[in-house]
């Protein structure tokens, strides 16, 4: 783990237990998940029992305790998206990738997550694919998006192997 990054996250926040969630947000952003090692350091530096750090990290949806895949698929499950057929989307992803929300494919290429609302309800169903918003998403569009990403990844792997 790059010590300097965690170091910079903790700067100005040491011995301030109330900064726990903010610190974990930054750790999540930096590493893509909350590593156990980071929890230990955070507990020590903020003066919060490790058990409490774990409790907070496992309570809030924003934190993941396992590493995320290379590509993030976030499906909005808000009411407005739901009434426009968003519930077909997790089924679609499950059918195509074999994983349900909160999980990562075995090859580490995709992590699927559901989110309760992304606040762009007028454009639903909404899917965020690697930080890019896709509006009016249908199962077919999502399928094509995953297919093309997978193809690209495979090409890259073949290219790297050839090198």
């Amino acid at each position, binding site marked *: 783990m790059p010590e300097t990054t965690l170091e910079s996250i903790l700067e100005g926040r040491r011995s301030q237990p109330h900064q726990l969630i903010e610190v974990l947000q930054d750790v999540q952003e930096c590493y893509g998940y909350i590593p156990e090692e980071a929890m230990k350091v955070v507990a020590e530096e903020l003066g919060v029992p490790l058990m409490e750090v774990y409790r*907070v990290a496992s309570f809030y949806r924003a934190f993941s305790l396992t590493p995320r895949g290379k590509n993030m698929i976030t499906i909005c499950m808000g009411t407005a998206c739901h009434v426009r057929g968003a519930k077909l989307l997790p089924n679609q992803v499950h059918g195509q990738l074999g994983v349900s929300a909160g999980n990562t494919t075995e090859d580490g290429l995709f992590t699927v997550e559901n989110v309760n609302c992304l*606040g762009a309800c007028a454009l639903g169903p909404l899917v965020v694919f690697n930080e890019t918003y896709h*509006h009016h998403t249908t199962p077919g569009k999502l399928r094509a998006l995953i297919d093309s990403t997978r193809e690209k990844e495979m090409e890259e792997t073949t290219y790297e192997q050839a090198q």
Partner: protein
Amino acid sequence: MSKLNNISDLNAIRKRLRSRRDSISTVITICGGTGCQASRSQDVIDAVRKELKKQKLGRKVLVRVTGCHGFCEQGPIMVLEPGNIFYCHLKPEDASDIVTKTLLKGEVIERLLYTDPVTSQKIQIETEIPFYRAQDRQLLAQNRQLDPCSIEDYLAIGGYSALAKTLAELTPEAIIEKIKASGLRGRGGGGYPTARKWTECRDTPGDEKYVICNADEGDPGAYMDRSVLEGNPHLILEGMMIGAWAVGAQQGYVYVRNEYPLAVKHVRIAVQQAREFGLLGEHILDSNFSFDVEIARGGGAFVCGESTALMVSLEGKVGEPRPKDVHTVKDGLWHKPTTLNNVETWANVPSIILNGASWFAARGTKDSKGTKIFALTGRIKNTGLVEVAMGTSLRNIVFDIGGGATDGVGIKAVQTGGPSGGCLPIDKFDLPVDFEALYEAGSMIGSGGIVVMDEKTCMVDVAKYFLTFLQDESCGKCVPCRLGIDRMLEIITDITEGRGRPEQIDLLKELAETVAHTSLCGLGKTAPNPVLSTLRYFPEEYEAHINEKRCPAGVCQALIKYEIDDEKCKGCGICLDACPHDAIKGEKKEIHTIDQDTCQKCGICIEECKLDAISVA
């Protein structure tokens, strides 16, 4: 920028900024809110800027990237001044036409104009579009006038003059008196009178007090708080400053959802700017008022929208609510007196101070004053943010502003108030939208989500949707909420999957009442509302599921099947190729069939079929 030491500094800079603003008459306003960004507005912005540079107009034309205008479905959107010309669904390649034709020659580009879905007519002027015309946009209209990352823009349109007036002329008591006279009530859901909250907090002894802006907008289907905070962050800060002065707080917090990255970014910039200008910090504008604001990002827990849970979350702990025997105005954040208000509530404060309580109270009904922003979404033509005076009828909102049903499918209900609210059938659409009227009808205003539902929406499925949401979001602290919602969901799942029994309805009602009466916090107490309201207004849908094992709307997957219409199918093979589960069989140019055992009802074939030959039975 140098610090503003006093009110005359503020007035002087405002004068300078205003005259600079007035000197540029050609302004291209492009929405850069989350909705339009999802429609790639950044590419349009870049293309317009490039084109202006190419045509050497960079200094003569101002491109203002603003927050959300509210008409997200039409994004990316642009308004050109002079002329108030409204262009929508823009693409980067439109930039050169916009500059060469509209800006240089004054020609209006027909293809970029908005088409009214009701009359099919093209409309040129923004204010003449029915979606906007029928609204009363006191708060939202400001979004269009400013770049949210520019304190200069906010100052130029009169920003922070309510703060100046407060510090120069008004005692805390006078502020509270004004808020009381205005009749302002909390916009977050509860509708608690704002002045009462402020008075109680002010009257509680203590040197250390806090104000909090609740921007943890967790209701799925509501996004007005995101738009206001993202589009006009200084307005919220100014409201909080006035509130802090009134209650005697020195520190404020904005607790904002991390799922709103743009709002987080904008409010952080705003706080930084306000500090640089001396509008946050010690002895603001040479007064004895010192105040600062910190930003805290929420962890994505719905329960943290509840005030006590939000406060413990701010303390860096697990967001579980606590009993409210002692109110947070007396014993709140770090056990200190705390005033927590919602984004939209804070947003209303500066204009009440500037324009007066009676100006605010002139709109609305007897007990619900002012305007309210609603997120109008779902199965309707015009979706977006709608600001109307309290008391406007649902019919007005859904049909006059929303333009009515899509695809000719009849509208049958609206869901208001998110997971705490309920579903209201079309025969209740004449109800005035105010706190009391909706509550009495079995729903609530909540934070302002209005999700329109039509004949293709299954009301049992909607109840199941909310229970699934709430089961997932229940913090688990109290038994009635944790287990009660679980059991209710079990019953509803039985019903939607064809295992429902008539006697389960009574059990469902009994459970709902128990959960409502015995849960600890507001989330649990209101959790049964979606179930109770659908049972009350749509009993026939429950009966169809239970007695006939049929989903009238064709939504519940266990009770429907996909079928190919022999008359329409031409055997083109598109669906066969598209089906990811190989459930469709048939030879080329012969009628295809669906193998019901393999079909996953994913909907892809319906989407792909060009002949409308596949339907849900």
